[in-house]
């Protein structure tokens, strides 16, 4: 991977709303830029002045620990003034619509708005109403582009490539924006993707995205280089999708036994937060030889720094 970003290549999009909108050049541009920040984030002096004088607003309508703090840190390390809106105290709770909030924030002339919202397409709506760049930090079950980018960077960091790898994405695909963004991105980068889930948790027509479907985990993990586990999103499940957590763990929880069907050097990933003992065995999650879950968090900051830098005008 090139250490110097080719300045001649520009990002094709004004906003980062989803992987669907990005070209392969856009993706490479972001990943190249991000890999430049990995070492910076490990050094003693982590502060740059790339975004000095710029204002970044984090607008999180859904609770988030890692994504919100990751974006906040990324902005601060680049020297931006970062403001995180606390939704529980804001006018939104008093009935203000997203567009009105957007217009209010827009009047404060931010350079970047990072938004997470429970409704799919909320970031698209916001982007139509503001003058600055909008970065999607997760909208409904549609997309979570920076998560997919940091996952790709983590895989590249370990496996040196993505093309030709066999990657299993397992669990609650239906409610997962992480799964959708990863399918788009890993497909674009040439991986072969296995989707492993009970059929009740698979979105309709998902096979049309060019992935292999498995409802048996051992078959789905066979010869995989990467096993990406997803969180069971119990809070989004209104009616009965699953009989019980213990049955789910029995059939779809990642255990040593199931993992043995993947390649010996297979890596375990998880976007967090984890339900230990439901989708993943707690010892496997912490196994430093197999799990790259902490590395994902670490590289997340680098990827978000790259996105903020590239999309900020």
């Amino acid at each position, binding site marked *: 991977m090139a250490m110097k970003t080719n300045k001649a290549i520009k990002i094709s999009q004004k906003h980062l709303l989803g992987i*669907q909108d990005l070209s392969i050049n856009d993706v490479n541009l972001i990943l190249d830029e991000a890999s430049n920040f990995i070492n910076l984030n490990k050094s003693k002096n982590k502060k740059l002045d790339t975004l000095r004088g710029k204002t970044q607003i984090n607008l999180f309508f859904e609770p988030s620990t890692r994504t919100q703090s990751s974006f906040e840190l990324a902005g601060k390390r680049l020297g931006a003034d970062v403001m995180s809106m606390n939704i529980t105290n804001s006018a939104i709770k008093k009935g203000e*619509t*997203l*567009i009105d909030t957007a217009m209010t924030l827009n009047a404060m002339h931010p350079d970047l708005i990072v938004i997470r*919202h*429970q*409704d*799919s*397409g*909320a970031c*698209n*709506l916001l982007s139509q109403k503001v003058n600055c760049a909008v970065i999607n930090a997760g*909208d*409904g*079950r*549609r*997309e979570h582009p920076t998560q997919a980018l940091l996952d790709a960077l983590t895989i590249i960091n370990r496996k040196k490539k993505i093309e030709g790898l066999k990657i299993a994405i397992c669990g609650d695909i239906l409610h997962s*924006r992480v799964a*959708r963004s990863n399918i788009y991105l890993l497909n674009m980068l040439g991986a072969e993707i296995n989707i492993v889930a009970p059929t009740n948790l698979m*979105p*309709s*027509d*998902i096979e*049309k*995205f060019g992935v292999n479907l498995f409802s048996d985990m051992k078959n789905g993990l066979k010869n995989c280089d990467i096993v990406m586990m997803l969180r069971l999103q119990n809070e989004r499940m*209104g*009616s009965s999708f699953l009989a019980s957590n213990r049955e789910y763990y029995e059939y779809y929880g990642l255990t040593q036994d199931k993992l043995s069907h993947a390649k010996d050097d297979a890596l375990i990933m998880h976007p967090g937060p984890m339900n230990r003992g439901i989708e993943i065995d707690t010892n496997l999650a912490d196994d430093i030889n197999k799990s790259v879950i902490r590395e994902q968090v670490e590289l997340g900051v680098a990827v978000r720094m790259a996105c903020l830098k590239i999309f900020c005008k």
Partner: protein
Amino acid sequence: MKKQYFINANIIDPHNSLNESGGLIINEDGKIEGIGKKVNRNNIPSREKIIDLKDKYIFPGLVDMRVFAGEPGYEYKENFRTLSNAALAGGVTSIVTMPNTDPIIDNVSIVDFLKRRGRDKSKINIFPTAALTKNIEGITMTEFGLLQKKGIIAFTDGIKTIQNTRLMSRIMTSAHDLNSLILQHAEDYELSKGGMINDGIIATKLGLQGIRDIAELIIIERDLTLLENIKCRYHISQISSSKSVETIKRRKQRVKFTCGVSINNLSLNENDIGDFKTFLKLSPPLRTEQDRVSLVQGLNDETINVIVSDHKPEDEESKRLTFAQAATGASGIETLLPLSLELYHNESVKLEIIIKALTSNPAKILKINKGNLTIGNDADFCIVDINKPWIVKKDKLVSKSKNTSIEDKKLQGKVTNTFVKGVELFKL
């Protein structure tokens, strides 16, 4: 009123199997006195003023079976005056209004109010429906008998479906006894819960929860099974999928009922939703192109009897939201006929069939003497330039709400004049 003479028109009146060029005479009372090829310049007294329509079309005033009025309760979205003007601009002279107002039309006293408002503020014929159940809660039946005596012509929960099978069978039994017409919106709530658009790849891509076509089919199958045992006047308001068309076609061989389709489902598909266009959040949802083609075919072979506008005015504030939060429905009464004519221009459906589904068929189902050009009846009709090209612009719409599903669409065919009881109430 002076007598009026029109000549050189193409007249289509499916009720009287009339499809010929000729003229129309309206008498001093606003009734039709003469119609057809017999009416020409040679047999009209020369001192009379004759209007030469130069091959424009005359259709009976349209009967739109599914319209949301806004009054009472949602006057800021639409009132009877704006609704009637919008209808006239689209050649619609009779409408069936849905009971989903605030308060709900579910008792005798509110019907009196509604009829009075309708009469005072509107210039078209308004046929109100009442709810099937109190407050459209799907629990207690309304007084079909008493409401009918007040002039209610059909019963429906409008946007809602009777979920309880036992209640539905009792409703049908009452409808049988009282000869009442039931209009059912077919949707199984357990299957459609949280759904916003058609289930499939578009829903998966947009991250929106889908509504499967079987949510509609299950209610249709249930109701038709009941209907085989309890005969009553039963009409499915709107269908949206190939599966529904197939089932209805098959069931019609055994049991008598009718069904309708929204012009939106005949003209658009799920791809039109594009990047979260909330104006295309509809119920039933737009489905695949294959579903759309099946619906057009169903109209052609008369499996589907009626085309409706499903006119549902929503103000800007209800639509400028995320897709999940936005209100459902589109304004469409003004574009019902022009958009239907697209099916004629692209050679999908014969003109007579389209006009039949917009005039005589709904009138027959509702048992009202409208949607025809029979001598002696009120002269409710429209004059249409069926080739006139124009582009839909929401700001030019007459309706108070501008939530059209076909903004910027190029259409061919426009209503140039609309008459109710012989009076010209709209002129382009």
